[in-house]
């Protein structure tokens, strides 16, 4: 049955000919794709390839110079993101979307407790029963493998890996359908990275999340994503199933990226 859903459903987010230029510099040129519920898309490329610009446009934080992004809202109606009012956009961000920043300090409030960081998202969508908020926050801390004894501590007392797991809990507590991730394992030690990736992988499958993840790490793309887009100079130069693109890369630049991976 899960599969019927996958074959028949409609796209969740559609990008059409997205471009962004800063004066004469084109940061992102003519990007189009459709993303479906439960699908994980990795955008890979080196610094300056335009992948972060693209992510900001897709998540409605940056207005495109040309093209549009449309998103199918929870009520089933597809809307062009640029036509959303500021309040509607903020509501979308608090409910149906998540955004995981590379630096957890950008996605968390560092001085308030972990429990409040998670609970805050629930209060923003109208939860007001303290006991239920705390219970749900505890559940989520457990799911991201944070010891409940640390619930009243502020994230500035947490390690990098714990902060990133807390950021993920804060994002997922409202059960979003779409999550954007910007280099979520970027600043972490390798062993901490593996644990986080494994956690993200199982949560994504369990919650049937659609994810757009920006990463320069092809191992991250291989582990998490179904599809990959390779960017260079603001353009998508190659796209396809992740294992196809990584095992049988066609473009010179993709071959260079793949051949630069150190053997494990």
């Amino acid at each position, binding site marked *: 049955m*899960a599969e019927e859903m*996958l074959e028949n459903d409609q796209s969740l987010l559609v990008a059409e000919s997205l471009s962004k230029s800063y004066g004469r510099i084109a940061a992102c040129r003519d990007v189009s794709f459709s993303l479906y519920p439960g699908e994980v898309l990795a955008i890979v490329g080196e610094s300056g390839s335009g992948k972060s610009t693209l992510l900001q446009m897709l998540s409605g934080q940056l207005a495109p110079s040309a093209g549009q992004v449309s998103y199918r809202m929870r009520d089933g109606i597809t809307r062009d993101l640029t036509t959303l009012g500021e309040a509607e956009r903020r509501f979308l961000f608090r409910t149906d979307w998540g955004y995981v920043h590379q630096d957890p300090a950008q996605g968390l409030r560092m001085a308030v407790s972990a429990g409040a960081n998670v609970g805050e998202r629930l209060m923003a969508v109208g939860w007001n029963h303290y006991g239920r908020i705390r219970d749900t926050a505890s559940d989520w801390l457990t799911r991201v493998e944070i010891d409940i004894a640390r619930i009243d501590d502020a994230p500035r007392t947490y390690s990098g890996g714990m902060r990133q797991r807390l950021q993920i809990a804060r994002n997922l507590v409202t059960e979003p359908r779409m999550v954007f991730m910007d280099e979520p394992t970027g600043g972490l030690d390798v062993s901490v990275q593996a644990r986080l990736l494994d956690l993200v992988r199982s949560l994504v499958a369990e919650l049937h999340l659609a994810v757009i993840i920006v990463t320069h790490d092809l191992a991250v793309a291989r*582990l998490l994503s*179904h599809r990959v887009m390779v960017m260079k100079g603001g353009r998508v130069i190659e796209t396809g199933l992740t294992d*196809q693109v990584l095992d049988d890369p*066609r473009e010179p630049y993709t*071959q260079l990226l793949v051949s630069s991976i150190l053997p494990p």
Partner: protein
Amino acid sequence: MTAMIDIAAAKKTFTMHLQGGIELPVVSGVTFHVNPGECVVLAGPSGAGKSSILKMIFGNYRCDSGRIGIRHRGAVVDLATAEPRQVLNIRRSTIGYVSQFLRAVPRVATIDVVAEPLIVNGLARAEAQQRAGELLHRLNIPERLWQLPPATFSGGEQQRVNIARGFISDLPILLLDEPTASLDAANRAVVVDLVAEKKRQGVAMVAIVHDDEIRHLIADRIVDVTSFAAAA
């Protein structure tokens, strides 16, 4: 009888851009079919392109030209031109692939590695784990190892976990890349039995097997890959 796999004039070349754009022809004119309940073994020396053909049938390698017809839920889909989403659906419900080496995710218990293909197709976890246990038992993986991730297992144990994961599902097509390569005689016999059971269930299989004895036991037909050698 309607073939499960019908390949016509499939061609694959690698272009090595980092080596001055050298063209490396792999195979061309690949043409054969596989019926339900039949095991076709690909024969030919190392480097003849056997694994590449399996990868083309799985959609892991892209074709330059030709057609890879796959019977998927009653209709024939050309995998060479299918959309990524369709390829994923075909892998989920039609084609299984037992690779030469297990590519396991860190931290996932062996029993779950094996049960996963059933769970993604909607079977309850408990039932999936029970079937995974039965298969691990048949393949002589001791129960005390089932809760451990397979990363630290020996080569032969990992290969058996890989086989269990490949054979657990009820997919109508199975691709086997050297399934018996690092197994002892007892476990090779188990694999031969598993292949025979799949045939009785009508599963179409394509296998690469170097061991002559195993090849005799499982092959219904042999396709000589050297005839598809691409002209350099």
